C-alpha cells in the first residue's frame, strides 16, 4: 500500500536478562517482541493496546530508535530504518518523535522549557530563529510565552505533558509515537491533552502510533486498533469493528474487565467471559498459543501450535485457532506427541 507511512515487518526483540548455570551458560532471554507486523497509514491514529509485559512499549522504543530489533525491520515510507547500521540517520530521527508516559521523567528537571524545546530545533531546524520558533511552539500548544523560562517542576502534570508534545513537534515530524501519553494524568486533564493531540494531527497531518492500556480511551482516539499479548499481536481491526465485534478471547477478556460508567457501555462488554489466571512471565511464555492457559475456549491444538493471523473480515485479522479454516489439520496430534516427548 502506497499510503502507509510506517510498515513494521516481523519485528522481534529478544533481551538477554541473564545466564543459566555456571558451566553450561545458556542465555536466558525475554522475547519482549516476538514477530510483530502492522502498518500505519498516513494521517491515522494506530492504537496499540496491551497489558504489562505485552511488549507494546518495546515496539514504541524500537520505532523511535532506542533499540535495534533482533530481527525484522521497520520501513518509513518504504525506507528501511535500520539499513544503515547502528546510528539512525538524522533525517529519520526528525521524522519520528515520541511522547513518553511519565512527564516527570521525560523533561529534564534542571533545564528550562526553553532549553528543552531548543534541542530538537538546534538539531533539526538549524537555520530558523529558535527563540521565535519556541514561541510559535508554545502558541501551537496553547501555553503562554512566559513558560519559556520556567522549570518543569513549576508546571502541572498536564502542562508538562503538553511541553513534551511541543518538543516532539519541534523537529516537524510526520509520525509521533505516543507511549501512554495520558495515563499519568487526572481524567479531567486528560481531555485537554487528547484534544490538543487530535487538533495537531488534523492541522499538521501527523500520524500517531498511540500506545495505551486504556481501551475506553482507545475507542475514542484510534482509527485502527491492534492488541498485544506477550510479545505478539492477537487482533487488528478498525476501531469501530474492534469494539463491536471483538473476536480474540483475550480481547473479549480485556473488554469485559473494564470498569465503565453507564449501562450503555455495560452492554458493549462481552458478558460470557471473565478474567481468570495470571499473566505469564515473558521469560516463561507458555507453548502453543501464549494465551491458552487463560482462555475459556481452549482446545487441544492451542496448547501445542501457535496460531497464525487469519483474516476474518475486511481489515480484521485475528490470531486464534477458533478462526482458522479449515480447523487444524490432522498433523496436530503428531506435533503434540513430539512436543510431549521432547518435554
Amino acid at each position, binding site marked *: 500500500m502506497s499510503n502507509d507511512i510506517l510498515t513494521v515487518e516481523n519485528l522481534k526483540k529478544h533481551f538477554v536478562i541473564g545466564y543459566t548455570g555456571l558451566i553450561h551458560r545458556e542465555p536466558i532471554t525475554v522475547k519482549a517482541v516476538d514477530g510483530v507486523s502492522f502498518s500505519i497509514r498516513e494521517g491515522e491514529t494506530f492504537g496499540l493496546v496491551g497489558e504489562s509485559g505485552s511488549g507494546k512499549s518495546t515496539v514504541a*522504543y524500537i520505532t*523511535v*530508535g*532506542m533499540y535495534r530489533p533482533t530481527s525484522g525491520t521497520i520501513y518509513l515510507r518504504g525506507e528501511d530504518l535500520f539499513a544503515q547500521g547502528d546510528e539512525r540517520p*538524522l533525517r529519520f*530521527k*526528525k521524522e519520528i*518523535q*515520541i511522547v*513518553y508516559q*511519565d512527564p516527570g*521523567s*521525560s*523533561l*529534564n*528537571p*534542571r*533545564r528550562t522549557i526553553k*532549553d528543552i524545546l531548543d*534541542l*530538537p530545533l538546534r*538539531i*533539526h531546524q538549524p537555520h530558523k*530563529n529558535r*527563540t*521565535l*520558533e519556541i*514561541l*510559535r511552539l*508554545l*502558541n*501551537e500548544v496553547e501555553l503562554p*510565552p*512566559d513558560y*519559556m*523560562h*520556567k*522549570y518543569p517542576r513549576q508546571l502541572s502534570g498536564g502542562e508538562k505533558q503538553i511541553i513534551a508534545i511541543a*518538543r516532539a513537534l519541534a*523537529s516537524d515530524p510526520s509520525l509521533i509515537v505516543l507511549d501512554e501519553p495520558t495515563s499519568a494524568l487526572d481524567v479531567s486533564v486528560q481531555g485537554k491533552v487528547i484534544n490538543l493531540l487530535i487538533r495537531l494531527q488534523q492541522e499538521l497531518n501527523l500520524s500517531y502510533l498511540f500506545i495505551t492500556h486504556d481501551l475506553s480511551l482507545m475507542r475514542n482516539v484510534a482509527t485502527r486498533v491492534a492488541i498485544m499479548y506477550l510479545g505478539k499481536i492477537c487482533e487488528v481491526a478498525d476501531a469501530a469493528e474492534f469494539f463491536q465485534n471483538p473476536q480474540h478471547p483475550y480481547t473479549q477478556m480485556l473488554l469485559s474487565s473494564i470498569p465503565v460508567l453507564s449501562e450503555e457501555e455495560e452492554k458493549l462488554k462481552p458478558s460470557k467471559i471473565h478474567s481468570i489466571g495470571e499473566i505469564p512471565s515473558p521469560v516463561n511464555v507458555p507453548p502453543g498459543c501464549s494465551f491458552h492457559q487463560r482462555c475459556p475456549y481452549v482446545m487441544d491444538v492451542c496448547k501445542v501450535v501457535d496460531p497464525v493471523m487469519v483474516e476474518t473480515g475486511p481489515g480484521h485479522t485475528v490470531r486464534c485457532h477458533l478462526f482458522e479454516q479449515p480447523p487444524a489439520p490432522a498433523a496436530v496430534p503428531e506435533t503434540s506427541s513430539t512436543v510431549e516427548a521432547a518435554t
Partner: protein
Amino acid sequence: MAQQTAEWTGFNITEQELRRMRWQTRRENLGRSWYKFSRNPLSVVGGATVLIIILAAIFAPYITPYPDHATRPFTDFANASQPPSLEHWFGTDEIGRDIFSRTVFGFRFSLTMGVVVLSMVVPVGVILGLIAGYFQGSRIDTIIMRITDIFLAVPPLILALAIASVLEPNLFNSMVAVSLMWWPWYTRLVYGQATALRNEFFVSSAEVTGASTAHILFREILPNTLSPIFTKISLDMGWVIIIGASLSFVGLGVQPPKPGLGTMVASGAKYLPDQWWISLFPALAIVVLVLGFNLLGDGLRDLFAAEEI
C-alpha cells in the same frame, strides 16, 4: 530579532518583555532557594564563617596588625612567647611573631590547598564518572571503574605521605599527593548518579532526537548531578584542609617559616602545655574553618534535597 516578535508565532510581545520574564522567573527561583537555605540557621552560620574567612585571607595584609610577621623572615626575641594580650590577640610564638597575623595568613595556605586540589580533582573525577556511567557496561566503563577501584584501595593519607616524602616536601607536592587520591571519590559519586540518570526518559528523548554525546553528558546528565557534587565539594574542603594541615604538621606540607596552620600547630607543640597559645589558636582556626565548610555543605544538601519536592 525585530523589536516586535514576529506575528506568526501567535504572540505579539517585544524582546524586552521576554527578557523581563526571564529575570522575573530567575528572581523567583533565587528567592525560593535562599529561603530554603536560610531556614536552617546553622547553614547560614557555616556560610557566613566561610565567607568571612575567605575575605580575611584575601585582605590579610590590610587587616592584620603585623603582616610582616607572616610574609618575610622575622624575629623579635624580646617579645618571644608572649601570652595573648591586647597588642597580640593570640599571643606571640617562640621567636616573637604575632600569632593572630600568622593565623590569618595561614588561612591562605589552607584555602589555596582546598581550592587548587578540588579544582584539579573535581573536573577529572566528574568527567570520568559521567563517561563511565553513561557508557555503563561497555569496555570504557570497566577500564575507568577498575582504575578508580585501585586508587580507592590505597589508604589516602599513606599515599600522600609516600608521595610527599619521595618528592621534595612542599605545599605543591602535597597538593599533588592529595589530588591523586581524591578524584576517585568524585568518579564514584557521579558514576552512581549517571547510571541512574541514563535511564531517565529525558536522556532517551535527547538520544532519539539526535543530540551529541557531549550534549547528553554535560547538558542533560551533569546538571542533575550538581547538587551532590556541590555538597561533596563543600564537605571535602574541610577534609582537604585537614589533610593539608596534617601533612604540614608532620613536616611534609607548608615549610617554615611560612605560616601554614598545621606547621604552626606542630612548631608550637614543643611548648605545650605552658605556652598553650602557640598551638591552640592555629588549631582552633582549623576547626572553625572545617566546621564552617561542613555546615555549609549540610545546608547545601538540605537546599538541594528540598528542591526535589
